[in-house]
């Protein structure tokens, strides 16, 4: 069946507003009587809080509220505790600070300058404690402990996942070749251009209203309900357009602080983090991965031992889940009979690491894809064929018990290899050396599945998709409309989809906009809602035409009798007649994530890869990417231009993490928490030759075969670059970024004046 809307690269629905500068982000909102909040942060990485004295700050003219631990007496009106996986965080520090940037107090004042002045008047006495900085050392019994009151945490380990299969010793005994290496990756930061920001107030009836650029409106509402000891229905979370997130804007970041200040000041409060504070709010896990791989002479994988030490910083955040997923896919997309993998999520005195595009997979993919490359090299085999020969195939069982489905690795790997002429001998002469490398990745999207949607036919013939999927650049608004249009049988041209931003009062429940889940989970809900609406419209038309609904067809926004096209109504006419008779809304409802949907172990696999051709200057170490090919199995690309944009953008963050980015700490102090010193990929760091390969192996349960793809390229990029560097230099890179630090240009020339 041909599609009418799905598969078409229509313009983004939010596009015109965005190019005109008219799209509203949280940062653009104002509210009558609004105060400005600022946060006092710990200057030391680990200390007992001896004294916090806010009395002078509170007396400063223009200050309306100062929030400190004194506002959280036991049994008081607010509960200080929250946390995604365990209640390890507090709104403000109660007895200890655990990283530089930890929240000690907050002030709301008439303007930012006054609030800043008040922060300087708060007296804090710290009793410094020994520092925990290295995740591997942190788990030794004699290491200082970050927490002593939480039973979930032992020896600074807040989570441990094990994956086992077969007999690991036997696996290595039966291997002809064994590789063993340790890989390291540094802390990185999301660097979404719109900083974390929230605007909160209590309305006349006592309801808490929060506008925030979050990926998890319903999650934020739930956590706020716990802190404010209010029913969730008394809280409304509204999400304007989001200026980039990449995982950083999930769960409470500043919302609770804005709300607590608003509660105390009895006025609306706006908090916008400064760039330096964003760096200290959430990061990507630094990692140490020890990996041992055994194989037969012909390249057949026999055994995989992996130990993952992920540095989650001072609080668990999403870390346990990140480590869990990384550990469960530490065998890559390959069939390995004997497996022993252990992942540890470890607390140290750094800002907390949480979800970041790729969710723990880039760290471990660097290890397993370097090993696949080394295996091919050591055994004299082709790197593409070695991978293909070991692939888990359609219908195979993954070691976690999930089934492999919609996994177009073979096609993808062959195309990637061909795109850069992998294996070509031209290595260059003199000090500039050429190298080529590939890598692939696998990520499970076993996140919370539940999504609910409504599709509404309006009186004027327009439609509204009511979905809490957050538009943060990925194109959710557009893709959901395309899915609805396809199911309704309308073409995008001539039909208006009225945008509705996520709003917990209006848009039904959605677990979250994370894990590349929206196209699949929300897409299914929207499709079902659209079908439900179409059925209602057809039934109503059948009634009007005095004909059985079975005898009606729908196409191009018209309902007509089968075989008699001219006899019928447009949707617009049907809606008009409906509203002439009824007051009730014309809405279709759809839900994804019921028991039937959850029968499969996980909704879908993210499948992706990368091929790189680069040039390295053997004197300076500078790396120049000549060509980068990023690929993904989209299942079915609902909007190919958006898909390509996602894949290319994802890969670009991978380039940054491989060659440029590292948030550095010295004695627990961040030393480059600013855009001046933390190097992001610029126009100069990305090659012109940057094709995208979209493979389409339809997913049987995806809407029109589609599934998520927004995290499928990044994890493969550092490994592909490392493999290409080996091809050029004969040296294995076992560390992101560091090996070539300082040598990469990213010239900071700017043509702007000030």
């Amino acid at each position, binding site marked *: 069946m041909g599609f009418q809307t799905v598969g078409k690269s229509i*313009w*983004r629905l*939010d*596009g*015109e*507003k*965005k*190019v*005109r*500068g*008219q*799209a*509203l*982000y949280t*940062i*653009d909102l*104002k509210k009558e009587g609004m105060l400005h909040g600022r946060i006092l942060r710990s200057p030391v990485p680990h200390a007992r809080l001896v004294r916090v004295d806010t009395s002078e700050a509170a007396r400063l003219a223009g200050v309306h509220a100062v929030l400190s631990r004194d506002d959280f007496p036991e049994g008081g009106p607010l509960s200080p505790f929250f946390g995604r996986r365990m209640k390890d965080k507090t709104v403000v520090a109660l007895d200890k600070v655990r990283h530089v940037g930890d929240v000690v107090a907050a002030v709301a004042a008439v303007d930012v300058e006054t609030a800043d002045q008040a922060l300087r008047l708060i007296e804090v006495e710290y009793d410094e404690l020994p520092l925990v900085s290295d995740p591997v050392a942190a788990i030794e019994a004699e290491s200082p402990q970050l927490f002593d009151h939480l039973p979930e945490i032992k020896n600074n380990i807040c989570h441990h996942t094990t994956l086992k299969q077969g007999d690991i010793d036997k696996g290595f005994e039966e291997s002809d070749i064994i590789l063993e290496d340790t890989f390291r990756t540094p802390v990185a930061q*999301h*660097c*979404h*251009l*719109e*900083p974390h920001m929230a605007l909160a107030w209590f309305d006349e009836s006592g309801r808490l209203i929060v506008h925030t650029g979050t990926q998890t409106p319903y999650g934020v509402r739930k956590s706020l309900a716990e802190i404010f000891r209010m029913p969730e229905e008394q809280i409304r979370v509204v999400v304007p*357009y989001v*200026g*980039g*997130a*990449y995982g950083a804007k999930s769960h409470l970041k500043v919302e609770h602080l804005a709300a607590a200040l608003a509660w105390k000041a009895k006025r609306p409060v706006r908090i*916008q983090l*400064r*760039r330096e504070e964003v760096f200290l709010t959430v990061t990507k896990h630094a990692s140490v991965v020890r990996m041992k791989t055994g194989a037969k002479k012909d390249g057949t994988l026999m055994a995989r031992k992996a130990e993952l030490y992920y540095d989650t910083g001072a609080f668990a955040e999403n870390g346990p889940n990140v480590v869990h997923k990384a550990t469960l896919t530490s065998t890559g997309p390959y069939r390995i009979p004997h497996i022993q993998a252990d992942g540890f999520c470890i607390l140290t005195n750094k800002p907390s690491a949480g979800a970041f595009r790729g969710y723990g997979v880039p760290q471990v993919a660097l290890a397993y894809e370097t090993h696949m490359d080394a295996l091919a090299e050591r055994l004299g085999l082709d790197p593409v064929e070695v991978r293909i020969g070991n692939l888990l195939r359609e219908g195979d069982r993954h070691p976690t018990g999930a089934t492999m489905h919609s996994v177009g690795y073979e096609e993808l790997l062959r195309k990637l290899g061909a795109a850069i002429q992998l294996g070509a001998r031209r290595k260059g002469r003199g000090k500039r050396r050429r190298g080529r490398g590939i890598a692939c990745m696998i990520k499970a999207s076993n996140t919370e599945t539940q999504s609910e949607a409504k599709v509404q036919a309006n009186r004027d013939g327009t439609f509204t998709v009511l979905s809490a999927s957050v538009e*943060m*650049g990925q*194109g959710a608004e557009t893709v959901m409309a395309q899915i609805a249009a396809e199911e309704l049988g309308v073409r995008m041209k001539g039909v208006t989809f009225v945008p509705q931003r996520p709003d917990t009062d209006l848009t039904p429940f959605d677990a979250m906009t994370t894990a590349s889940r929206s196209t699949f989970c929300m897409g299914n809900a929207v499709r079902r809602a659209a079908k439900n609406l179409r059925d209602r419209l057809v039934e109503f038309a059948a009634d009007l035409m005095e004909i059985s609904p079975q005898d009606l067809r729908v196409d191009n926004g018209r309902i007509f009798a089968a075989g008699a096209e001219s006899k019928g109504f447009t949707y617009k006419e049907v809606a008009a007649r409906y509203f002439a008779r009824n007051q009730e809304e014309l809405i279709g409802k759809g839900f994804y994530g019921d028991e039937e949907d959850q029968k499969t172990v996980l909704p879908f696999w993210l499948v992706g890869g990368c091929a790189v051709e680069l040039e390295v200057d053997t004197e300076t170490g500078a790396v120049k990417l000549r060509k980068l090919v990023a690929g993904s199995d989209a299942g079915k690309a609902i909007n190919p231009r*958006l898909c*390509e*944009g996602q894949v*290319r*953008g994802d*890969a*670009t963050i991978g380039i940054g993490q491989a060659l440029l980015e590292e948030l550095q700490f010295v004695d627990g102090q961040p030393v480059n928490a*600013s*855009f*001046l010193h933390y190097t*992001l*990929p*610029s*126009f*100069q760091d*990305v090659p*012109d030759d*940057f094709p995208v390969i979209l493979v389409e192996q339809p997913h049987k349960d995806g809407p029109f075969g589609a599934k998520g793809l927004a995290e499928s390229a990044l994890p493969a990029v550092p490994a592909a670059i490392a493999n290409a560097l080996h091809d050029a230099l004969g040296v294995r890179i076992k560390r992101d970024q560091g090996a070539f630090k300082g040598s990469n240009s990213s*010239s*900071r*020339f*700017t*043509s*702007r*004046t*000030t």
Partner: protein
Amino acid sequence: MITLNINGTTHQVDVKPLETLLAALRDRLNLTGTKDGCGEGVCGACTVLVDGHPVSSCLLLAAYAEGKTITTIEGVSGDGKLHPLQKAFLDNGAFQCGYCTPGMILMAKALLEQNPRPSAADIREFMAGNICRCTSYVEIVRAVKQASRGLRNAAKRS
């Protein structure tokens, strides 16, 4: 009180002594199309044109812009027909979250006014100080090239 000429309109604005142009635009005049990304002159989200030159409005004091001609994203096409750059950004998928976009478009506008036929390398060099975290920049380079062709053809016709 200072006088700012923004997008062809004169505004009397009451600013504090060290207030930036960015703050004056966003907070006093509600011209929120110009974005605040870093506040330290690095990301380019706050780019506006002052007398045709691209400027980081987060570093420029509002008082220094007095008597000069300021163009913000709101002045590129207003509510009217899209500027060729705006259309090219849409055609090429040159943005996702859109937060860097106003700055990118003004930067590209400044480039095309200086150099109506830029090569990819010219675009990359001129725009190197504008950060986009969502796209790969390739899409933006393509968009600027498309717009440069469009503008040249339009110039030929007129």
